[in-house]
């Protein structure tokens, strides 16, 4: 079969584009080299929907950030993804910071960000009593919001699949052959797909994919960002996302509640030469904790749940790289911050580029933008929950006690597009194993549910595919 479009990369950008394309009469496939969707930058970032005052006036980043921020609430509603409009603050400590705050204010106004206000110390501390007493001013952006990036990715890919798109995982693109009317995209394992159009949303590897069709106009490098995530007990320390005024060294460490009620602190910002080093470092974690404590009082790191490192895909142009360098090939590259915020607008923008390029796009009347929400049970009333449990007793069995996730929810997630095939996949979809015990109690049960649903042996279930096995085999004397 010849696909009309192949989207390379199942991150939030690829996912949102695929979903947008699935509204048209097209044969679509989504390719990703990993064992699941949302495993790259979309699995480990700050989870912020930026208001849009950071990017320089007139840049693609500014345009798409502001538009994306406007679209996000509606997108999340349709996809059943948690979203919270919590507001954001850029706090300043010095007179120089104050000038920066004012510059950001003017930039934000120019970019079209609504509701911006410069606060003095008193107003700031009235709004956020736990922000450092040394802060003297802040930019308040009421449109700043938070969303879960992997949840948004999973939901957008899932919605695209529900509308007919195919997902091919473990599909590491190693070569692209340019036929007359279509590309043949080859995977490392020997598989190949043919597609008329390619959307290159390959994140860190977008430059390599582009080079396969002869476009070497840009490069992408990795910028490491280490984070420390705290227990829900710390989640209400602040309401807004707290940024430090940016310096030459970047946006600095932010402190923010997450949509799930945790507190996230980070990231560091270190450019590296290779693209795989996601190890955290003692220095990086110490840096996150030190700067966080400068910005917000009362952050208790003995409530740490986990620490992790994400890799941002930084393009060589300084702006998002969204273009059509050659016929039927679209780059969507260098999508660093504010990439998550911009994702819905990027999808919209890519459609308009395709139309401009002469692609025929006919709306599919059967397209359904709504995805069954993953949190229906969790957020239901007592009566609603009991009605569900009556119909399906699995919803009465709690598997993950820390996050109170039921067997019913886990099974539903395992059966819903895109189907998880490993422990981390279940974790990202249901939050089971994401609480304070980090899967200590429930992971053996989840392995069992996965093995049962996929009809594979218990010991073949992995943490995240590849060689990430959980068990090496049976104990002595067990048949």
């Amino acid at each position, binding site marked *: 079969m010849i696909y009309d479009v192949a989207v390379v990369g199942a991150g939030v950008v690829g996912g949102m584009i695929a979903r947008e394309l699935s509204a048209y009469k097209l044969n679509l496939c989504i390719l990703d080299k990993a064992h699941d969707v949302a495993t790259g930058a979309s699995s480990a970032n700050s989870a912020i929907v930026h208001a849009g005052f950071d990017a320089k006036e007139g840049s693609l980043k500014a345009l798409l950030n502001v538009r994306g921020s406007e679209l996000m609430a509606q997108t999340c509603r349709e996809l059943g993804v948690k979203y919270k409009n919590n507001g954001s603050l850029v706090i300043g400590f010095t007179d120089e910071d104050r000038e920066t705050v004012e510059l950001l204010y003017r930039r934000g106004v120019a970019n079209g960000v609504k509701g911006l206000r410069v606060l003095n110390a008193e107003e700031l501390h009235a709004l956020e009593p736990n922000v450092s007493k040394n802060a003297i001013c802040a930019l308040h952006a009421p449109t700043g919001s938070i969303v879960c990036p992997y949840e948004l990715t999973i939901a957008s890919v899932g919605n695209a699949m529900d509308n007919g798109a195919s997902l091919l995982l473990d599909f590491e693109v190693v070569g692209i052959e340019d036929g007359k009317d279509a590309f043949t995209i080859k995977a490392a394992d020997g598989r190949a797909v043919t597609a008329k159009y390619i959307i290159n949303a390959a994140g860190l590897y977008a430059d390599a994919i582009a080079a396969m069709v002869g476009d070497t106009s840009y490069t992408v490098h990795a910028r490491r960002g280490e984070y420390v995530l705290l227990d829900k007990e710390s989640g209400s320390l602040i309401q807004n996302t707290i940024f430090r005024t940016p310096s030459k060294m970047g946006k600095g460490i932010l402190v923010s509640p997450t949509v799930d009620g945790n507190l996230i602190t980070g990231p560091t910002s270190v450019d590296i030469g290779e693209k795989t080093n996601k*190890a955290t470092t003692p220095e990086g*974690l110490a840096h996150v904790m030190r700067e966080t404590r400068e910005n917000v009082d009362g952050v208790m790191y003995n409530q740490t749940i*986990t620490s992790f490192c994400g890799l941002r895909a930084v393009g060589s142009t300084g702006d998002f790289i969204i273009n059509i360098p050659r016929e039927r090939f679209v780059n969507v590259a260098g999508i660093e911050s504010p990439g998550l915020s911009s994702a819905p607008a990027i999808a919209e923008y890519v459609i308009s580029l395709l139309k401009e390029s002469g692609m025929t796009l006919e709306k599919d009347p059967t397209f359904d933008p709504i995805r069954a929400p993953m949190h229906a049970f969790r957020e239901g009333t007592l009566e609603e929950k009991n009605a569900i*449990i009556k119909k399906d007793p699995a919803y*009465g069995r*709690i598997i993950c006690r820390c996050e109170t996730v039921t067997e019913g929810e886990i099974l539903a997630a395992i059966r819903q597009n895109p189907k998880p095939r490993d422990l981390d996949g279940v974790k990202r979809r249901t939050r089971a194993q994401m609480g304070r*015990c*980090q899967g*200590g*109690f429930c992971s053996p049960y989840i392995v069992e549910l996965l093995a049962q649903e996929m009809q594979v042996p218990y010991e073949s279930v992995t943490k995240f595919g590849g060689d990430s096995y959980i068990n090496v085999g049976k104990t002595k004397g067990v048949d």
Partner: protein
Amino acid sequence: MKQIDLVIVGGGPAGMSAAVAAYDSGVKSILILERDAHLGGILQQCIHNGFGLHRFGEELTGPEYAWRYEQQVYERKIPYLLNTMVLDISPEKVVTATNSEEGVFQIQAKAVILAMGCRERSKGALNIAGTRPSGIFSAGTAQKYVNLKGYMPGKNVVILGSGDIGLIMARRMTLEGAKVHAVCELMPYSGGLARNIEQCLNDFGIPLRLSHTVVEIHGKERLEGVTIAKVDENRRPIPETREYIPCDTLLLSVGLIPENELSKTAGVPLDRVTNGALVDQDRQTAVEGIFACGNVLHVHDLVDYVSEEAEIAGKSAVAYIQGLTAERTDIPLTTDGKIRYTVPQRITQKKDVTVFFRVADVYRNVTIRVSDGDRVIYSKKKLKVAPGEMESITLRPDQFADAKALSFALEVK
């Protein structure tokens, strides 16, 4: 709403023992709520022996010890619900729970006993640098895989932390054919029982590396190795002592945390040291009618002591329901730092009180001293005390009757 005199949250050793004691003291309207598929709690996966020496004068395995109490529950026909998770406890003692049969339901209790046990500290809480491969388990999770599921988590093992579960798992993994390369302990002494160090490490030639910790984790998919290092007296790793050990499995036995999330929903104040409720001699929390016992109150060395403590809570809950009390008083217990904590933290009635406590470090030739201001009301010499072994003393009302506060101190020669 269903009315029940005594609701017990947790059907492990603490919950079962409390239920039996309460029943035998005269309250028959009892309900045990257990989240797992069977009574017995964590004992079910502790298939090694060593349980029950104090209680029954013989060495039992975990499931055998649990069975002794299960039988007593069954004989008395004390009602219990399995696969039932308590979601909330209100200060007014309304217990909200869920299971497959009844859905989400509520019970109004006259008294509640908290017996939820504890959980293991996870890797995340340690903030170890490095990658996040598979192959890192808490010791208890590995124990569940091996003993209950019949699967081996790995073949080449390093264990961080010398808590008892870690020591037990060092032996268990070895018996199953794995190679345990080292047990690293951050402190200069082990937090585990002396007998476990002997029987689980020394008997198998497994090295215990005191004052060592894991500083980095390696491996992209499955764990490939860990870097360990010696720590200085401030527990900071010494860079020159870094040492790489190839392994596919890292087990963590780095402390147990009482599971008090539900206690908090009931407004029960907690002790910052034990992470359990602040209680009086009856194991009653600061919220009237809510009691706590077992590892949810403070982490015990031996299940025998859990059972003993749970009996106090069970009997006291009955006395509370029936309105019986001894003459009242109110004496806070304080500690000097060398003694880290006491349980109870308060004496509210004039009757014999056994006070349990733990010390902060290994001390030799000590005198345990309890005073009311300048007046010493109790003193006892001991050759050695250690954080891994809980101590206890019993005070009589005539010793503390008029005290304003009792301070617990350790004098070290």
